[in-house]
């Protein structure tokens, strides 16, 4: 199979997705996608992650089930998603309409020395999501495709899945707050108000 070279830039992609995030709840994976979401603008309803690799999609599921009236966007990396592939099956079984899982796919482990991930060798994450039972799943290569899909991320009944192919171009680390309990409290207070501390 001839491989198509990615040309989208991750920071621009994530900024574009989050530009009109409204009341959506954002769950980035650890590493690059946490820096990407921080670079797009700090927000209390982003649950920055510095650990728990493989858990982003499931954290998104628990959140989406608890908040059925809010849209939840998981924005994670290909390596992080590969570690939690079973969660695609678990999410599909729950038929969670308000959940979108987006993989910012640079086909490499960006935090550990740019080793190739399985997606570089042809592993098709949207194909796996579709086979698991996601309502729609798609690989996105161009900004035109991205523009078409961004409104769907927020509105189309899910679970939705998209893998957005991006370059390995270096993006500076933009570090958000780091204390896990503080990130959690800030998120819950913004979402639940005074109930967060009952």
């Amino acid at each position, binding site marked *: 199979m001839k491989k198509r070279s990615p040309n989208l830039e991750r920071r621009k992609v994530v900024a574009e997705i989050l530009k009109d995030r409204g009341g959506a*709840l954002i*769950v980035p994976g650890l590493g690059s996608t946490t820096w990407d979401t921080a670079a797009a603008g700090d927000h209390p309803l982003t*649950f920055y*992650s*510095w*650990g*728990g*690799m*493989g*858990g*982003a999609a*499931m*954290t*998104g*599921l*628990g*959140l*989406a*089930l*608890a*908040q059925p009236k*809010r849209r939840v966007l998981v924005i994670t990396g290909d390596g992080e998603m590969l570690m*939690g592939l*079973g*969660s695609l*099956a*678990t999410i599909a*079984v*729950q038929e969670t309409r308000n959940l979108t899982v987006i993989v910012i796919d640079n086909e490499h482990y960006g935090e550990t020395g740019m080793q190739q991930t399985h997606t570089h060798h042809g592993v098709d994450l949207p194909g796996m999501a579709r086979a698991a039972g996601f309502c729609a799943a798609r690989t996105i290569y161009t900004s035109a495709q991205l523009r078409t899909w961004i409104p769907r991320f927020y509105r189309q009944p899910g679970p939705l899945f998209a893998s957005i192919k991006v370059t390995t171009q270096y993006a500076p680390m933009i570090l958000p707050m780091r204390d*896990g*309990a503080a*990130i*959690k409290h800030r*998120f*819950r207070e913004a*979402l*639940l108000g005074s*109930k*967060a501390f009952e």
Partner: protein
Amino acid sequence: MPVVMKQKSAWPDRIHAVLRDADVRQVAYVPDAGHARLIDLCRADRAIRAIPLTTEEEGIALSAGAWLGGERAAVLMQSSGVGNCINMLGMMRECRFPVLMLVTMRGQWGEFNPWQVPMGKATPVALASIGVVVQEVDDAARIEETVAAAANLAFNGSVAVAVLIGQRVIGAKNWKK
């Protein structure tokens, strides 16, 4: 002894009642024979979302999301699944998320399968090593109060708690059946 038999068959029903009282809305599980009755009760309960997992650590990450969204979750598993959860439990500790794990033990009382023994023996140690409060219960009559206490500690104290339900309560697996 009919009284003892009745207690034995009723403890999953009492756990289910405790979970309802504690307002647990998401119950995630990897099946175990010891949890079969409780899983059925949760699946039949419209107030509870029952969530089958492909591996146990999914349930830990799910618990984080549930709490972020204002709901309470519990995770049911067999002792062999505890090892799968360790790194995800590290995240729960750093963020001080509540975790309620109900673990049915293998590799203990009358175990027939030697492959269950290493993880069974390691279960309480592994949990303690990542900061989970471990509450072991070997008597069916004490399961209800133990799970209620664990739920209280987890959700009001914002800590991870695991109740280990001893194989003596569940009964050794009968391989001749």
